């Protein structure tokens, strides 16, 4: 018995050391750092209590980043999931040109987000990109989608949907294939319409997958910021500044590490609450586990 303990510990040790070094310990250090000031030159870091948090509450850029992130998530999460489900249903059946459809839907997800950003900047560029040329064709005035405060956030959210929907399709496809055909046939015999079958058979059966994807999508809505670097740098005037991007800025452009730690604490709390909430909320509605 004791030998089994020893083996177990030896087997776990390397993974645990990595996890502790780059997750548990830095997470705790982040919380501690949020109560201290950032060291400046000769002035060492000192305990300042909740001052960083007070500063955060008074920081309009923080609130704008939060609001932006909320809008970004509200667009990204449902839209990418709905697109993924529609696309999975499309390529699952015997549709003409299925290979092309699969390729079209999957490809964006394999591309690095930085490459995706490049492709879309070009697509969006006023006077240059395809969207501008189409607008021009219809005699519409030129519009700088990424450079206009009211449209930039939607423009970057669209890019994230385009990139990630293909990834979620894979999970939906996997789930759809596990639905026993006999259930669908039985429903058909009972005279159920396509919509009824989807609503009453398919949708409940893929509910666990929907939960799994939604957790991933929410994490993505907080983490996916690569394209912000490339497309807008958080601009114009913070219109596309998201929480994680703001943390990067504060931490690595302003080198205000304590304030960055404070913002990181908020981000970790949000991520944890969202995950917990989703699991509790959706768990009640998940049938047929």
């Amino acid at each position: 018995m004791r030998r089994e303990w020893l083996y177990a510990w030896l087997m776990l040790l390397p993974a645990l050391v990595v996890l502790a070094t780059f997750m548990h310990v830095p997470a705790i250090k982040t919380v501690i750092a949020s109560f201290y000031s950032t060291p400046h030159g000769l002035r060492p870091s000192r305990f300042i209590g909740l001052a960083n948090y007070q500063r955060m509450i008074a920081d309009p850029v923080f609130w704008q980043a939060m609001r932006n992130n909320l809008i970004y998530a509200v667009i990204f999460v449902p839209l990418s999931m709905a697109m993924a489900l529609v696309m999975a249903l499309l390529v699952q059946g015997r549709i003409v040109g299925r290979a092309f459809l699969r390729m079209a839907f999957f490809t964006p997800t394999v591309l690095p987000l930085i490459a995706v950003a490049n492709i879309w900047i070009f697509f969006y560029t006023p006077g240059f990109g395809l969207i501008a040329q189409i607008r021009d064709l219809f005699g519409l005035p030129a519009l700088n989608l990424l450079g206009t405060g009211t449209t930039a956030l939607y423009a970057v959210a669209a890019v994230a949907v385009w990139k990630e929907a293909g990834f979620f399709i894979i999970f939906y496809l996997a789930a759809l294939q596990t639905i026993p055909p006999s259930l669908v046939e039985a429903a058909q015999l009972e005279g159920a319409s396509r919509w009824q079958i989807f609503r009453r058979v398919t949708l409940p059966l893929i509910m666990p997958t929907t939960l799994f994807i939604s957790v991933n999508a929410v994490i993505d809505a907080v983490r996916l910021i690569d394209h912000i670097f490339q497309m807008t740098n958080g601009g114009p005037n913070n219109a596309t500044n998201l929480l994680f991007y703001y943390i990067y800025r504060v931490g690595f452009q302003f080198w205000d590490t304590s304030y960055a730690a404070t913002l990181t604490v908020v981000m970790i709390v949000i991520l944890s609450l969202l995950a917990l909430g989703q699991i509790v909320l959706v768990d009640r509605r998940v049938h047929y586990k």
Partner: protein
Amino acid sequence: MKGWDWLATIGGWLLALLWVLPLAYAVWTAFHPSAYETHFNLLAPLTLENFPAAWVQAPFARYFLNTVVLVTVILAVQLVLGTFAAFAFARLKFPGKQVIFLLVLLQLMVMPDVLLVENYQTIRILGLVDSIVGIGLPYMASAFFIFLLRQTFMTIPTELDDAARIEGASLLTLIRRVYVPLAKPTYIAFGLISVSAHWNNYVWPLIITNSVNARPLTVGLSIFSAIDSGVHWSIINAATLMTSAPLLIGFLLFQRQFVQSFMRAGIK
């Protein structure tokens, strides 16, 4: 075909065409002279010149090498550490198992890249800033993989263990001869996920690298295509396609296996 099928087919095709449009446009410009990047013309002459032009304008060869080394090292270590950890969680009894498993799963929420500031300090203290190991180190234990593999290992009948043990096989032999071969689909599925995730990773490598020596493709591409660099769009698009090409081609070739390995790995 019934009416509904026609509708689904037409709708599906429209959606697919809309979906490939941004990429198709980038491909179109990458294969045409830069004079045509501002106006679409079906009869424009094709050219391959943009690719070598991009290749010589930045150290892409080095970026490629860095990325390949990076994803290989990360995957190799992830597989080894993950296999041992998953086996311990799936098959061994030891005190504190539940608590430790929960502590591992925390990483699903708090990924290494979320803790940018502190992890940067750690890597700096270790003297690994601007090195490939420095980029890879925080990712070398993947909670996702440990969880996935534990699930797979738990479905393997214990009779196989007993049989192997009766024949006097050690734990290591048991893992190598029984568990690893039977969990192959999980290894393949995770391998694909890991390689694409780290090939595409950007923020952390951006912070931790500051020279060509360690910079991966994503960071190299972003520097190359910075908006004000004055490089032609057709060349930027060529570079963009070039850096994504290995993954794209790999994916197109192994699409079926990719999706199937996911299904067999039980990710649903």
